[in-house]
């Protein structure tokens, strides 16, 4: 049995947001993407903390962009999901689907 590095729900959401945003995945759009889907305020500090953990695990990589005036001279940090990260997302998805299937209360999308 292989060991699985579990993703928290917030880490999974953050990685999915990075994937959806493709080449425009930096703090502001990542936060907006998650906020639009969850309808909750997202703290940018939490996003950076999650991305730092994911980067340590090798699931994402980052690169600094150029500083811009509208950001007070600060650079953007762009994130990309690695192959390892993609594999992890698929494994998590498969695990969740398997767990879902065995629960009659969740069938058909009813509460």
């Amino acid at each position, binding site marked *: 049995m292989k060991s699985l590095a579990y993703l928290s729900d917030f880490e999974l959401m953050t990685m999915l947001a990075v994937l959806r945003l493709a080449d425009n995945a*930096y703090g502001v759009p990542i936060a907006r993407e998650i906020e639009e889907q969850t309808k909750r305020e997202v703290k940018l500090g939490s996003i*950076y903390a999650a991305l730092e953990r994911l980067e340590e695990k090798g699931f994402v990589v980052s690169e600094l962009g150029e500083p811009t005036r509208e*950001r007070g001279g600060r*650079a*953007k940090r762009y994130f990309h999901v690695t192959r390892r990260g993609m594999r992890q997302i698929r494994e998590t998805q498969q695990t969740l689907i398997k767990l879902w299937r065995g629960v009659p209360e969740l069938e058909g999308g009813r509460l």
Partner: protein
Amino acid sequence: MTKSNSLEPPKLATWLLEQFSPVLEAPLAGDLIESFRQGRSSGWYWRQVLWAILVAFLCSSRKQWGRLAYAVVCGGLVSATWFSMFPKTASTYVQSITESTGVHFERIQVQEVRALPGVFDLYAKSYGIHWPWSLVYQVAFQTIFQAVIITFAVCAYFGFARILKVQNLPGALLVVVVVLAGSNLAVTFLTVIQPLRLAVWLVLISTPTLAMIIGTWMTDPARTAWFVSA
């Protein structure tokens, strides 16, 4: 292009972010400024900054638990040193207020000086000063006393590890002094309120530890390496 004040985020919040999280600050502060200029409120900006500081502290402590343990132990020692000098600190405060204002409080006890009598003599000079200068003297004395020990402890920790970054010290000590002075001032006033005695003692005991944790965290050069992967 003329800049409007409404497009500028709260300066104090940005300064705090820079002090507490200098490396994280670059991309994160950029994101916060960009969002603020897109219409987010000052309240939102402050919430984000305070949360980011808390997260940066927790992430840093997760990796530097030895530093955190050292800060807790040293903070406890600072409290112990202070209390060994003033075994009846609360009574001392009450007596001081009575002497200065003429208002009598019950249960005043005689002080028993057990340690560092020379230092206590310096502190006791405040009893001959009229309020509010006696209060200023006492708070300043206590703050300086605690800050000196904390500074020594912080320098010793990073000095022995040969990773002391002197440029990190001024900002760290400024925040330490503000935390200590604010707490000591609040405690001095709250001491006379009987129902709050327990809370006052808890603040008295925990403040040097909190200041020590902040001091070591802000001085730690590893803090400036947090989230650096590029």
